[in-house]
């Protein structure tokens, strides 16, 4: 159930993003890229969650190809200094921490790229007084 809505959301965001990227207004293109990159962020998160125990956070090398669900599971053990994450059933409710690290990195990189493109867009506007792509082409000739 969760999977279905996640897929639907990703698909919708992709559609909206693609629609915006194909516009003439440069600002809309940039917003479109932002939406696409967020669709991809959701996709990355989806790669690690809702998989009902088929993916576990850390796979031992030998175990990776059989079972696929025999990773290390941490349980609270205060005397040994192990503090497990809060979960009622570690085999089905454990979220892969690596994808979250990946998403964080992707968000930060997306921010940097967007900032750069926005600056460039601002310079184009300063130079021509418009950010309409067809208008720009007409002005350049």
């Amino acid at each position, binding site marked *: 159930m969760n999977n279905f809505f996640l897929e639907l959301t990703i698909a919708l965001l992709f559609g909206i993003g693609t629609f915006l990227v194909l516009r003439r207004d440069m600002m809309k293109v940039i917003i479109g890229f932002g939406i696409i990159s967020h669709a991809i962020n959701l996709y990355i998160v989806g790669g690690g969650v809702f998989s009902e125990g088929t993916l576990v956070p850390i796979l031992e090398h030998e175990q990776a190809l059989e079972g696929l669900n025999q990773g290390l599971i941490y349980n609270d053990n205060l005397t040994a200094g192990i503090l497990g994450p809060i979960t009622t059933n570690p085999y089905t409710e454990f979220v892969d921490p690596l994808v979250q690290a990946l998403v964080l990195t992707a968000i930060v990189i997306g921010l940097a*790229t967007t900032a750069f493109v926005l600056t460039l867009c601002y310079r184009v506007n300063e130079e021509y007084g418009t950010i309409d792509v067809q208008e720009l082409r007409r002005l350049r000739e």
Partner: protein
Amino acid sequence: MSFLMDNLPMFLIAIPLLMAPVTILTKGSPGLQKAIDIVVGFGLLCLSVLLIITVWNNGIIAYDVGEFGKYGIVIVADLLSAGMVVLNCLIGFLGLIYSYDYIEDRSLNQTYHSLYNLMLAGINGIFLTGDIFNMFVFFEIMLLSSAALIVANETSKVTKISDKMEATMKYLVLNILGGNVMLIAVTSLYASIGSLNMADITLKIRILAEAGTVPWHLYAVGLLFIIVFGGKAAMFPLHYWLPDVHPTAPSPISAMLSGVIIKIGAYGILRVLFMIFAPFQAVYGPIILFMALVTLALGATSAVGQSDVKRMLAYSSVSQIGYVFLGFGMAAMANVAGETEGATIILAASVIYLINHALAKSMLFLTSGGIIHTADTRDMRQMGGMINKAPLMGAAFLVGAMSIGGVPPMGGFISKFMLFDAGLREQFYLPIGIALIFAVFTLFYMFRGWMLIFWGERDAQYGEYSHHKLSPLIVAPILFLAAIVLIVGLYPEPVVQFSQTIASQIVDPQPYIDAVMVRMIR
């Protein structure tokens, strides 16, 4: 010394990364800034040479960043990575020397050196990392810094800022899309294989393929990777950005873009086609071969009619990368047919081609900077008779043209000859025939360019050539690269041997996997 040797691969990434803020802090005194940068560039070159010697003698180095064992990121230097790093550091260092006077003439941008260092760090990182997501991160570092460098140098006399902005926009749009596609591919790979480490993924996919249980969507994931790296390398359907971007950048940056940055795509394709997705070569090989043929034909035919000197060189880069990919495609198909030895020979020829093109094309772009500096225009039809004004540029351009065109005493001849010879031996008659036809085009447009620029007289209506002499710091890197191209052509034995070792390492990635796995399981 041992501290240096132990962390050698890390230094190649960390030092330029550290220099980026340092060069911003010293922007108040440009002399100091440039001096620091050139010293560091030379240090990097020495370190990269040290790295390749170590790898050659002691085998593949796998460096475990932060000692996290198998949960961390590995940095791997095999001969291919180390060789690419040497190319990057060499061309980067020469570009820095070249920039010393070249950029100052046209209003030194204060962030130029900082961005340049970031770009070097990103490229070194891409070549050295053994983690596929980490590669994406370094891609973005390289992309943003190189995009900013393309649009820098606003007051250039020959290139309008509007052209630069349009080119940068194209570059960014393609590369943002490429980055997004790569993220999708990396995530899909991680979700189905459960690892981001390239050696680990290779091993698991190979085990899956031997058991005959490869999930079908992995084929699509591999294709996504080919699209990403093909876009970086300007392969046929994704080549449209290159002829705009390379000419508008400042000349040292053009040299880096054409010499090293499009080779990143070739490096990625090598890793994808021969390592990670090696069991799928039967599907990917013909695709790459076909795309390579279209690319080299398209690049060569487009270059013939160009009047802008840098645009001609940029189209020539498209065509030459097509030849490199032709070798990859043929090697993959030979590998599928069970001719491992033949595949190794073709791949070695391809690697030599890549090295020669990197040297000759970056030299040509640096030379074109000198030519444009003298003529104050990029239009070849408005030049002519420059041989009297800048004879050294003429000689260097001739060396480069002969090398790219494949005329005997130059490095380009060896690479073309070996590629065609190895291809014919594996009976790829049709692709080699097509490639031969367009090799003639290459000769034609290169010598047309040389004649337009250096022969005859300049038309009086364009006025005299500028009288300021080219600074020795602009001429020296060009002559140095020209000398290397000549030496490679006259005495190719070490390069051939080196490429054959690289090729055998690529075709059989077992040592790479072993080296990484030992580090991981520890």
